[in-house]
């Protein structure tokens, strides 16, 4: 029977009762219901298109396209673009520049142009505004007149920087987002070592996101398991506790962590009260992580120098210097810088004298306004996003699987690891992807509790959006971030498979 059917379809298409081909008839029949379904989702589709897709495309373009200069400097733009960036600056270029300066000064646009060029070469702002003031009175030869107004006009690299600003479509911002410099002659070089901040920031962002994801998994997995196993009444109560953070403002939650973790905060008080700080200190000294926990705390102190000065204090106090170690370390370091080793020693001795007043052993840890604080607060805020998918998957794993495994001779651990755990992988994948992607673009928490070394890329984007007003660089940074997220999504699909993801 099956064979004859295939044969018929091969030879001649099946016809409906009224003679039209069956396939077309089916499509006609489905068309109306499909249109109706589309009508239902159309408002959302339009909404997403208007407020999500179009802005994303727009800002991706903004990262490559900046017409501020080209729109306002009509005379110099074509000439600069035609210039190869190598041959000497011509009188023609200077004349066009002077015309443009007069023009922009008259229509009061010179400030914006100057800001734009300043992004390529700092110092350009004053050069442009002061030259523009003098431009009306300039006489040919214009190049010399310009150099008279500001000697920077005589430098070729300044003109190259202006050429970059004059190019509306430019890879400069994306390259800058990756710590490369795009010069006017089309050459691409790495940024100077001290200005390479973006790549390090991206790496740190990913590092924090990864740590947060792992912490969420480690903390969330047992909770999700408990939720799935407990009787309904207790599970509901626990579920409310899990969801409680969702109902609290993110600002409140983050601020609560400040109260918890700050130097005179609850956690530090508790540790001093119980003596736990001493234990942690001793342990961290064993592992030689002293600097990470205490002195440096990423407050911009040169760790090695501070460490070098600390033996004096240690000598005086035995195992640990007194007071808040961060402050202590900084003071010793300052003393070291002023008076050398003997200065540091005498300062350490002065600290020792005041140690009696402070009370010995109340070392407090810097747990907030640094990377640690960011990680703790973000883990707390993102935890539900890990627990909920895990819970929904665990709920579907029947307890009989574990029983079956045990009846076959598996220990509790083997039964968990070989039978239960593999079946929760879709939930782990979903939770991890959710948390990681949310974390990688997180803004408000690092802004509040991140201090210096807890800042993430979003905070930098914010900086360029609101402070430096370099929107194109902000757009390029956002674009790179988007590409990174898509890359992780692709990686996840390759390793785990996106069909394996279960969000609930």
């Amino acid at each position, binding site marked *: 029977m099956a064979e004859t059917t295939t044969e018929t379809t091969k030879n001649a298409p099946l016809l409906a009762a009224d003679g039209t081909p069956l396939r077309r008839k089916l499509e006609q029949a489905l068309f109306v219901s499909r249109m109706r379904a589309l009508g239902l989702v159309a408002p959302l589709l339009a909404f997403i298109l208007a407020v999500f897709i179009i802005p994303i495309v727009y800002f991706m373009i903004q990262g490559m396209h900046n017409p501020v200069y080209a729109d306002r400097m009509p005379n110099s733009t074509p000439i600069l673009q035609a210039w190869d960036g190598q041959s000497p600056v011509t009188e023609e270029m200077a004349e066009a520049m002077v015309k443009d300066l007069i023009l922009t000064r008259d229509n009061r646009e010179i400030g914006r142009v100057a800001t734009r060029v300043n992004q390529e070469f700092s110092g350009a702002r004053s050069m442009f505004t002061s030259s523009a003031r003098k431009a009306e009175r300039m006489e040919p030869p214009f190049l010399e007149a310009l150099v008279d107004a500001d000697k920077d006009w005589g430098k070729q690299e300044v003109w190259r920087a202006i050429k970059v600003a004059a190019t509306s479509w430019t890879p400069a911002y994306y390259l800058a987002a990756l710590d490369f410099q795009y010069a006017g002659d089309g050459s691409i070089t790495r940024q100077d070592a001290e200005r390479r901040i973006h790549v390090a920031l991206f790496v740190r962002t990913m590092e924090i996101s990864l740590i947060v994801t792992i912490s969420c998994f480690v903390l969330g997995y047992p909770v999700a398991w408990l939720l799935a196993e407990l009787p309904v009444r207790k599970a509901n109560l626990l579920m409310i506790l899990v969801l409680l953070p969702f109902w609290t403002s993110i600002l409140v939650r983050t601020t609560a962590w400040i109260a918890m973790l700050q130097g005179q905060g609850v956690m530090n008080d508790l540790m001093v009260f119980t003596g736990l700080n001493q234990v942690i200190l001793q342990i961290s000294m064993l592992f030689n992580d002293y600097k990470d926990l205490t002195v440096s705390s990423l407050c911009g102190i040169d760790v090695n120098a501070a460490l070098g000065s600390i033996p004096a204090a240690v000598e005086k106090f035995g195992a640990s210097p007194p007071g808040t170690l961060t402050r202590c370390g900084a003071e010793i370091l300052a003393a070291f810088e002023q008076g050398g080793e003997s200065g540091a020693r005498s300062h350490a001795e002065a600290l020792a004298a005041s140690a009696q007043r402070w009370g010995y052993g109340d070392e407090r840890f810097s747990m907030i306004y640094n990377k640690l604080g960011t990680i703790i607060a973000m883990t707390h805020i993102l935890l539900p996003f890990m627990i909920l998918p895990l819970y929904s998957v665990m709920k579907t794993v029947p307890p009989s699987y574990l029983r079956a495994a045990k009846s076959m001779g598996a220990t509790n651990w*083997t039964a968990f690891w070989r039978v239960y755990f593999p079946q929760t992988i879709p939930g782990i994948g979903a939770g991890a992807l959710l948390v990681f992607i949310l974390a990688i673009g997180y803004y408000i928490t690092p802004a509040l509790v991140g201090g210096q070394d807890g800042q993430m890329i979003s905070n930098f984007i914010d900086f360029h959006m609101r402070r430096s007003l370099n929107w194109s660089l902000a757009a390029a940074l956002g674009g790179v971030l988007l590409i990174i997220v898509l890359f992780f999504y692709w990686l996840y699909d390759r390793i785990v498979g996106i069909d394996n993801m279960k969000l609930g």
Partner: protein
Amino acid sequence: MRATSQGMDMTADKAADAFVEFERVQKSYDGETLVVKDLNLNIGRGEFLTMLGPSGSGKTTCLMMLAGFETATHGDIRLDGKAINNIPPHKRGIGMVFQNYALFPHMTVAENLAFPLEVRKLSKADIETKVGRALDMVQMKAFGGRRPAQLSGGQQQRIALARALVFEPELVLMDEPLGALDKQLREHMQYEIKHLHERLGVTVVYVTHDQSEALTMSDRIAVFNDGVIQQLAGPATLYEKPENAFVAQFIGENNKLRGRVENIEGSHAVIALDNGPKVKALAVNCGGIGKPTLLSIRPERVILGPEAGETALKGRVVELIYLGDHIRCRMEVAGDDEFIVKVPNNHAHAVLQVGEETPIGWVVDDCRALDAA
């Protein structure tokens, strides 16, 4: 009657060589009610014992206590002479088949079968031969590489069976393993499990609420109700000689007539039915004179028409249902219109009409006077 004697023989010699023993076992979940009340049960080596009962009767709890997933509140459970109350499930070496098979969905069929062998740290070669043999045993040789989700219900059932047997346990527990299958497949699997049991000689403890399943497969059946074993006997005994009203009702179809004991003469009693006539019955479990009792007669043991003989009552036909091999006749007897008679569809059977009155009767020993439940 051959089946009966065979069943009885097995009962005798299996119980003597107790492999699994429940001694005064009690179980409570909430500390207020007992789910299992004072359970005493010996299961012989190589026996196929079924725990049969309605849901909530305590049968599954007993199985779970034996498997080690529930602990007994009181009493001892012994396996091969050793108390196992404090041995964790994974050290008991008991094979188990679960209601919904519990095949691990992330492993192939072969990996599922290899699992109990791997946790026992057998060598790769050993595992391979044993898995192959187990697949052979359930005629699933070609399916080793498939995932459980790619198998039909019956195939999954076979794999679950093979997995419970692959590590050669001496005792296999089955918790309503056929519950999820359709009727035809269920019957087929019943025979298959029965044959497997005969071939391998393992001890099987089987839990079900389906009495026909229990009758088909078991050497002995323990009928559970309300946390107590109501009767423990072979299938034939259980059906033909129920000891109380619950068992008579639960196993097979049963007619009940309510009455009061008028007189007891040796092993027989004279019962006055609530609605008039007096009948003679086998006094099984009916208490003394004046006590209420329930008469139990199997529908196929009722004799219709002139042959009805000594205990003849009058019955009025209420409904006739044609069922092919027999005709199901609902009658009104002594004021009760739920009295069922199965009339075999043969040349000799009486032709009945709805509304017709006919004498009905039975052999006295077929009418059993039981407790008035």
